[in-house]
C-alpha cells in the first residue's frame, strides 16, 4: 500500500459530492397542422392518436361537431376546432388524424389535417404567447414552440374545450 497515494485519495472521500442535475425539464408535445397552420397540444392531454375513420353524423349538432365514433366501447364526439384557431375550413386531402384529447372535465376526438410529430422539448424552448396574436387566439394559445424552421402555436386543451362550449360549437366570429 502506498501511503502517499492513499492520502491523496482520502481527500476525495471527505468531499461532499453533489450531483448537479443539468437536464432541463422536458415535456412531450403533439405537433399537427390544420389548414397548413402549425399547432401543438401537450402530449399529456392526448390519450391516443387515431387514423382517420368514418364519423357518424348526428342531427341537431353544430357543424363543428362532426359526429361520433365508437372507440374502445365508448361513444366519443369528434370535433373540428378550425373556427377556434382561426383556420379556414379544411378541404380535406390526404391522411387526416383524430387526436383523442382528455381535458380536466371532458374528452373528445379532435380532427386534424396532418399529424406532424410527437416529440419531447425542453420547457425553456416554449416561448410565451406573443401579443401579436388575435384576441381569439390569445384565449387558447399558451406558448409558441420553434421546431425546425416552423413555429407551432401551443394550445391548451382545457381552454379549447372551454371556448368550444362558450361558442356552443358555432363559429366564434359569427
Amino acid at each position, binding site marked *: 500500500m502506498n501511503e502517499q497515494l492513499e492520502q491523496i485519495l482520502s481527500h476525495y472521500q471527505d468531499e461532499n459530492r453533489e450531483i448537479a442535475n443539468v437536464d432541463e425539464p422536458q415535456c412531450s408535445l403533439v405537433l399537427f397542422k390544420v389548414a397548413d397552420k402549425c399547432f401543438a397540444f401537450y402530449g399529456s392531454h392526448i390519450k391516443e392518436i387515431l387514423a382517420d375513420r368514418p364519423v*357518424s353524423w348526428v342531427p341537431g349538432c353544430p357543424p363543428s361537431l362532426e*359526429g361520433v365514433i365508437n372507440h374502445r366501447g365508448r361513444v*366519443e364526439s369528434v370535433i373540428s376546432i378550425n373556427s377556434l384557431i382561426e383556420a379556414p375550413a379544411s378541404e380535406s386531402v390526404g391522411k387526416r388524424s383524430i387526436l383523442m384529447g382528455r381535458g380536466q372535465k371532458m374528452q373528445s376526438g379532435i380532427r386534424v389535417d396532418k399529424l406532424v410529430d410527437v416529440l419531447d422539448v425542453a420547457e425553456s424552448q416554449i416561448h410565451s404567447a406573443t401579443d401579436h396574436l388575435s384576441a381569439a387566439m390569445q384565449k387558447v394559445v399558451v406558448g409558441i414552440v420553434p421546431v425546425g424552421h416552423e413555429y407551432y402555436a401551443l394550445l391548451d386543451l382545457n381552454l379549447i374545450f372551454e371556448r368550444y362550449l362558450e361558442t356552443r360549437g358555432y363559429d366564434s366570429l359569427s
Partner: protein
Amino acid sequence: MTPSLNLAVVRITLGALRFYIPAAQVQRCALVEYETPDIPRFSHWLGLPDEPEQGLHLHLWVPASQVSEGWYFWGELENVTLQASEIFPLPELMQQCSMLPALRALVKDNSFRPLLSW
C-alpha cells in the same frame, strides 16, 4: 343468471334520419286523415328541415313531451327492442351542444341515432 337488459322503443324513420323513443312514452300513433294546421311537424319541433313526403303520413302522441297535440310526420314507425349494448350515453360535448330537444342517448344501428326521452 342476470337477465339481459333491454328497452322497448319505437323507431321513427324520417327520410334518411332515424330516431328512437321509449315505447312506454308513446301513447298513440295514427294515420293522418285530415291535416290540422295547428299540429306541429315533428321535424320542425326537432329543429330540422322537412323530411321527404314518403311512406306514411302519421300523427304521433307522446304526452311526456308536453306537446299535447302531438306531431305529424312522414315516414315509418316500428316497434323494436334494443339490447343494453346498443344504447350509449352521450359524449359530454354533445350533451352540451346538441340542439335536439330531449336527446338522451345514442343508439347504434348501422350508424349512431338519437334516442329521445323525457
